[in-house]
């Protein structure tokens, strides 16, 4: 599954309400859990995977974008959850983050995981695109940016 195929309007949150990094991960994972009917214990497990990964080193980049991600055993297919926050959130980087791409990928498919992360990094290397993304007011705005 390519990055664009993983983008789902139901997995976009604008604006996010999280106040800190932990809440940001919880908010994004909860969106995924609601869409896919995860049990509370499964949701907690995914949150732990993502937070444990962040403890090793923040995925917040200089341009206000964070890409938390985790390999999940037995996940059927990769998912990307996108969040845009009006107020930048401290996600452990030098600069606060206002755009989040949560990537969940099957542990069994490392090539797809890398491909999706790589696509996000490439598309976010455009300053114009990042400005447009951060000024999106609705999930439809965000979705449209990728499929223009």
């Amino acid at each position, binding site marked *: 599954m*390519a*990055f*664009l195929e993983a983008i789902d309007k139901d997995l976009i949150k604008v604006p996010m309400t999280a106040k800190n990094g932990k809440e940001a991960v919880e908010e994004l994972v909860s969106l995924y859990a609601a869409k896919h009917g995860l049990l509370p214990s499964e949701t907690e497990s995914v949150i732990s995977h993502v937070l444990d*990964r962040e403890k*090793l*080193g*923040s*995925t*917040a*980049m200089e341009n206000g974008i964070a*890409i938390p*991600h985790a390999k999940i055993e037995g996940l059927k297919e990769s998912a990307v959850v996108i969040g845009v926050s009006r107020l930048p959130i401290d996600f452990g*980087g030098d600069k606060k983050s206002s755009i989040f791409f949560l990537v969940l990928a099957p542990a069994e*498919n*490392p*090539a*797809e*995981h*890398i*491909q999706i*992360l*790589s*696509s*996000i*990094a*490439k*598309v976010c*290397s*455009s300053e114009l*695109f990042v400005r447009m993304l951060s000024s999106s007011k609705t999930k439809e705005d965000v979705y449209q940016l*990728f*499929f*223009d």
Partner: protein
Amino acid sequence: MDAPYKRILVYLDGSEGSMTAAMYAILLAASSKASLHAVYVVNTKALGDLVRSRILIDQEKSEFLSDLQKDAARHIRHTERLASSKDVAITTASIEGSPHKEIVSYIKNNDIDLLVLGSVNVIRSRRDELTSENDRMLRTSPCPVVVVRDSDDNIWQQFEEV
């Protein structure tokens, strides 16, 4: 009349689509007596870029590299078994680098005259940054390219029947 190709290359990327492409390439080789090559490219270019942009840490890079090398070995083994089941000789390789560049280089260095790819993306965005490796290979290959649809169940059926 002989087939207009003598050396076929199929690109493996760990996807189901590339395995369907491998089956089709084996069928082509069996029916044309062309020699068959299969190459998996471990995308170390992407790994390096992701570390530089701080999306991956060094420890993760090492883990992913190891996982991708295992993935490459698994898919190559599987392709070798598929080829063997049809009595088709196959040359396989696992290469590290930027996939589309490595494939173009392999084509030139080995006089490949037909490249077989799994499906390319449906065009859903005009953003060049989102062009997949298969798309890049399709556009830059110096030899003719066959694109195999991964939704094509006929190929699996054909493979079983031959």
